[in-house]
């Protein structure tokens, strides 16, 4: 099992969710986050006082998938979130040791 963590542009969130549903992913967790990468922040100007906003809002999507689904899911996310412009985000894939469905007590791939 793998945990896929994707940081995407907030307005791409719906596209990503749709793409994941289409390949049969049944659940994701989404968090509103801020961060910076190569995309620079912007400046805001209030009555001449200039403030640099370094951290830009992004959406973080976490999805746990079975080994055989990993490539497909990563591809779906990266296709859906792509605009070709700087700041599209990143996808991290990490090993997932255990998953438990709390209601039934199922574990492993059964719980996904």
């Amino acid at each position: 099992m793998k945990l896929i963590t994707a940081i995407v542009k907030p307005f791409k969130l719906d596209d990503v969710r749709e793409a994941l549903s289409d390949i049969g992913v049944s659940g994701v967790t989404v968090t509103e986050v801020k961060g910076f990468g190569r995309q620079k922040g912007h400046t805001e100007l209030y009555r001449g006082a200039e403030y640099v906003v370094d951290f830009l809002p992004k959406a973080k999507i976490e999805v746990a998938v079975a080994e055989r689904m990993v490539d497909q899911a990563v591809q779906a996310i990266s296709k859906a979130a792509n605009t070709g412009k700087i700041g599209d985000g990143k996808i991290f894939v990490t090993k997932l040791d255990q998953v438990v469905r709390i209601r039934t007590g199922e574990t492993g791939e059964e719980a996904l």
Partner: protein
Amino acid sequence: MKYLLSTFMLFSLLSFAGFSFAESAVETTALANPAAATVEVATASAAIATPAANKGDTAWMIVATVLVILMVIPGLALFYGGMVRAKNMLSVLMQVFVIFSMMAILWAIYGYSIAFTEGNAFFGGFSKMFLKGITPDSLAATFSKGVYVPEYIYVAFQLTFAAITPALIVGAFAERVKFSAVLLFMFLWFTFSYLPMAHMVWYWAGPDAYTDAKAAEAAGATAGFLFQKGALDFAGGTVVHINAGIAGLVGCLMIGKRIGYKKESLAPHSVTMTMIGTSLLWVGWFGFNVGSNLEANGLAALVFVNTLLASAAATLAWVGAEWMLRGKPSMLGGASGAVAGLVAITPACGWSSPMGAIFLGLVAGAVCYWAVTSLKSALDYDDSLDVFGVHGIGGIIGALGTGIVASPSLGGTGVWDYVANGVAEYSMSGQVMSQAWGVAIVIVWSGAVSFIAYKIVDMLIGLRVSEEVERVGLDVSEHGETAYHD
């Protein structure tokens, strides 16, 4: 392209205002002076019909008074509140709200008496303390002979002016001063700066006293110091705006900068709130300026149009300047411009022509923009919400500008001579000098009173909150509540 567009817009407006000045064909029919005095009904001779309040004027003054209340709460509170950080939102709302209430009570106890009864040229007397002797039949003079409004509504209308002026000051030292210190300072400043300034500028015996040259001289000698100097201030450019602006400047210089000034983000937490507050100020200002006419007549309509046009012109000037010089027109700039224009037209609104009002608005919008960006930066003081930059500078432009735009040669109404019952001969340089007297006196007076009052408060309870309190925010630490919950 957009630079070009905004440049073109600003210059076309400026030249338009210039052209309109050239054709000063406006016929002036009536004119008011800047204040009214109360009339003792009891002393009216039995031979003359008993004077009574004009019902139409009374109705208008009740509405105007409500409009000025709307300017303060919630208008000014939201205008300021939106510009501070979320952690200090309630502290600003609370300061404005409580100052308003406190000044209302002080006004009834001694404020009205000191400002609007006969005394010397600087302070009135104590004869109407606790509003003593005022009844539903008491009358206050307007600017027309034989026309009156009930003294109670005059008391209430002037109360709202006395309440908004101290509330304006809090913007200068927002986000860093103890609530108790704010209240004590306001008590001292109201008593020793607002009241004498109001008396100096606005107190006079009323038009009925000006029957002939000799009577006019006798009546004139009882008026306030700046009234005698001939300084014009229709609705409070000196008394309200320069007065508060100077107190704010002295305050932020003495109290010092906010922690993190020019290092951390001190950005406004809600420009939306500021826009709502500005709009309420704008609407309420019609009560402030037009109500200052005390009568619902043609001159009131001129004041209305002037107020409307000056704020619109200043909005365009500020936004245009910002667009040209910084590349983007901002909502906060628009809101600031509108207020700057309203401030500048306040002293002039009863004497200017509509084109004079546009001219004053354009100048105020552009110069106040320069003051809050370049001047503040160059002199390096932290006037949190630009009380000096907008009210102080805008007020000075308006007060001096009144001497120019009031001139009949520029379409202004000129100054009414109550003895000759006609427009007096007008000297622009003479009037500008009178206006300069007003400006100089208010700067020195408010500056000195403010300095002493801040010192006293600092010695007694300390002006500034601790660094820890400032970091956490005034809402939680001073008031025990938070404005927003996630």
